[in-house]
């Protein structure tokens, strides 16, 4: 087991180097630079431009800048934002709970609706219900996020007035930030009206962000269930006279869930990338919104640090999953 764990850990090193290199290269290959961004239509005195490039360390060759960046990262220093001058790590930590909260509820939405929908489609194979679920999930999967979000805002917020348009909480609630999770903070403050406002603000963004995972989970559950339902032990269970419910939940679902859970795990990365668009439309103050603005303003440390931290999270989660697989299923360790 130790060798297995070390092997998996060793794989993290090249992945980490790859991620830092890609993040560094991508942002530097985008035309323009942070100093140019400061000047706007107004010209900039060449001497001042040179001074700023020097202060930001951008006048050095790229490999030197990269080596310097990696050196700082290894010491735990992700640098400071070129626009706000605040440490990147502080900004990330302040905004990440918002993204996590949104992603969590998007996933809850996707799982709570996706699993039963997939089960229904499998049970009612080739019926209207099956076609409806599969048709809807195909539509959900192919839906452009931006368009879908605007459609929901126009319908539920502007026309019906059921949900707020954007933000995390109505402006009249000034809840002290303790954990950064709005639902937790409002409850801690004992302000139920604020909690209710926070929940209502979560509805549309969670639906938008959860739509694609919902479609994927529904389809995966359906196909996995169909496979399991054909197994002999299901036939045996039915022959024993068990109810459809018992057969489906106790015997079929548990076995069908294994690939579904793997798919759910894979959706985590997707949720974080989907959050970029969703947060922009819903003015959700999370890391997606922050990264987009970082790219627009060529804030190199923000983009590099943000990508690195997100990647580190995904790598970390994958590592834990890999190790858990190893513990649960010894065959993987020797594979």
């Amino acid at each position, binding site marked *: 087991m130790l060798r297995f764990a070390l092997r998996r850990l060793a794989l993290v090193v090249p992945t980490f180097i790859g991620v830092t290199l890609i993040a560094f290269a991508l942002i530097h290959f985008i035309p323009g630079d942070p100093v140019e961004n400061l000047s706007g239509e107004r010209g900039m005195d060449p001497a001042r431009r040179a001074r700023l490039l020097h202060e930001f360390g951008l006048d050095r060759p790229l490999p030197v800048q990269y080596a310097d960046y990696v050196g700082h990262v290894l010491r735990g220093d992700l640098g400071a934002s070129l626009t706000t001058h605040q440490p990147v790590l502080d900004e990330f930590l302040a905004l990440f709970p918002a993204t996590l909260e949104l992603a969590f509820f998007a996933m809850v939405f996707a799982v709570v609706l996706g699993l039963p929908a997939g089960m229904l489609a499998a049970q009612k194979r080739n019926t209207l219900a099956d076609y409806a679920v599969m048709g809807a999930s195909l539509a959900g999967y192919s839906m452009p996020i931006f368009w879908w979000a605007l459609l929901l805002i126009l319908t539920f917020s502007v026309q019906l007035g*059921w949900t707020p348009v954007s933000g995390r909480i109505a402006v009249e609630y000034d809840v002290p930030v303790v954990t950064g999770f709005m639902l937790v903070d409002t409850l801690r403050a004992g302000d139920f009206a604020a909690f209710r406002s926070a929940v209502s603000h979560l509805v549309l963004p969670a639906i938008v962000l959860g739509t694609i995972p919902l479609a994927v989970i529904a389809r995966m559950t359906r196909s996995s269930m169909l496979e399991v339902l054909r197994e002999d032990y299901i036939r045996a269970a039915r022959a024993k006279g068990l109810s*459809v419910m018992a057969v489906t939940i106790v015997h079929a679902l548990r076995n069908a869930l294994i690939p579904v859970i793997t798919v759910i795990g894979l959706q985590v990365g997707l949720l974080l990338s989907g959050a970029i668009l969703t947060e922009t439309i819903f003015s959700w103050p999370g890391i997606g919104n922050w990264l987009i603005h970082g790219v627009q303003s060529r804030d190199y440390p923000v983009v590099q640090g943000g990508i690195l931290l997100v990647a580190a999270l995904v790598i970390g989660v994958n590592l834990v999953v890999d190790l858990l697989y190893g513990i649960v299923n010894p065959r993987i360790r020797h594979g």
Partner: protein
Amino acid sequence: MRITNVVSRTSLACAVALAAFAAAPAALAKGTLVYCSEGSPEGFQPQFFSTGTTFDAVSVPMFNRLVQFDTGTTDVVPALATSWTVSPDSKAYTFKLRKGVKFHSNAQFRPTRDMNADDVVFSWSRMADDANPFHRMTAGQTFAYFDDMGMKNIVDKVEKVDDYTVRYTLKRAEAPFLADMAMDFASILSKEYFDAMQKKGTPNAADVFPIGTGPFEFVSYQKDATIRYKAFDAYWGGRPKIDNLVFSITRDATTRYAKLKTGECHVMAFPKPADLAEMQKDPAIDVLRKEGLNIGYIAFNVEKKPFDQKLVRQALNMAVDKEAILKAVYQGQGQVAKNPIPPILWSYNDAIKDYPYDPAKAKAMLAQAGYPNGFETELWYLPVTRPYNPDGKRMAELVQADWEKIGVKAKLITYEWAEYRKRSKTGEQSAMMFGWSGDNGDPDNFFVPLLGCEAVKGGGNVARWCDKRFEDLVVKAAQTPDKAARAKLYGEAQVIFKEEAPWITIAHSVRFDPIRREVRGYKMDATAHHYFTHVDIVK
């Protein structure tokens, strides 16, 4: 239980949960005005940054300058200074300060004295004096506007004459100086606050938690979400009518519009031109309009052939149907430009005749210049929407079609916005689209950064046009204290500009601020800031 039951129960539970929470947003507390702003401020210090977004969130609500622009105009009126005198050689400005001006307070700091000359001298010396302990505290931090305006070359020293008198001595006579003093970077900070924070060992705190003399006090900031302010009871100009001001940061213009519609905000920044028609039909929304302090133009690089010939530049001017551009690109919301400054700016020379749209004459002039069959060139167009040009590509296509009629084949080219500006400063362009929004209401603020000889070096003069007669006039105007005499000089400079035709002046656009009907007393600002000092909400 059947599987269909499970599904319907789950759906029902979700619907009930949704209904329980997804109620209409609660009504806003009375006296709270919500402004849907377009982005987050870069910080809460008025001297470090140079974007309008930051000014709106920092220097406008929380700080004051010695003088200010009368909202809606570019007239300079007293603010923290009640009066000023200028020495006969126009090199010394002596300001008499207002008495009884209070600074805000916060959990870390409670002022013990009123604003006085020490604060004014400190605020300037912090930017100008490298030896000031607060001059450089953070890597990469710059006094962007102070540097860009070349203030170090203009102001020699700032002295305290007495507690309520301050003298600025200039290195040369500089008539726009007073307008410069009304700009955001010239905000007055509390020296006592900075000293107190330094004593506590947290000097940076003074730049993070702002203390000013403005109409609103800082309450809190949740990054990328909201900025909260409350009315400053002791504001020298009289307490604002609203109790609370909230900036709801909403980057997407469509979302801002949706929030304005639902009443989640009262005023929104920067509407999308495409939404204006619908907004104007909405009975709950007033769409205010104001002539923009701006210019959209096409510049010819006069250092490159064939644009080094005046005749060619004039011919291409004549070939462009500006009225058609105004209709198609600006949707009629603006006016055709004939001068490099807009008509709302003093010294605008209305006697100047624009080049008429006359393709036949243009073709003849090209032939006279040695291009009877026209020529091939490049036309760079804006990759982004700017206040002075809503659709660069569409404009480029129209100009391309117009030029084609006289035999000039223009290849349309663009780059990503930052790259576009970067390349324009190297002189790589032949003809390019650009523009400018004025920031202090002084004509100098258009002529020098856009057409001055120094600006060729800095890159702001994208036509790279340096005309000695023009330069002499604008330099002389800047050194002339009398406004009428200055206006005359700028008027003459505009004649030279028109004759030499380094640009095709296309249009001055109109700006719009959509507000909800219950908002009273909101005035659009000439320099595109958003002021809420005198605003009220009536239900």
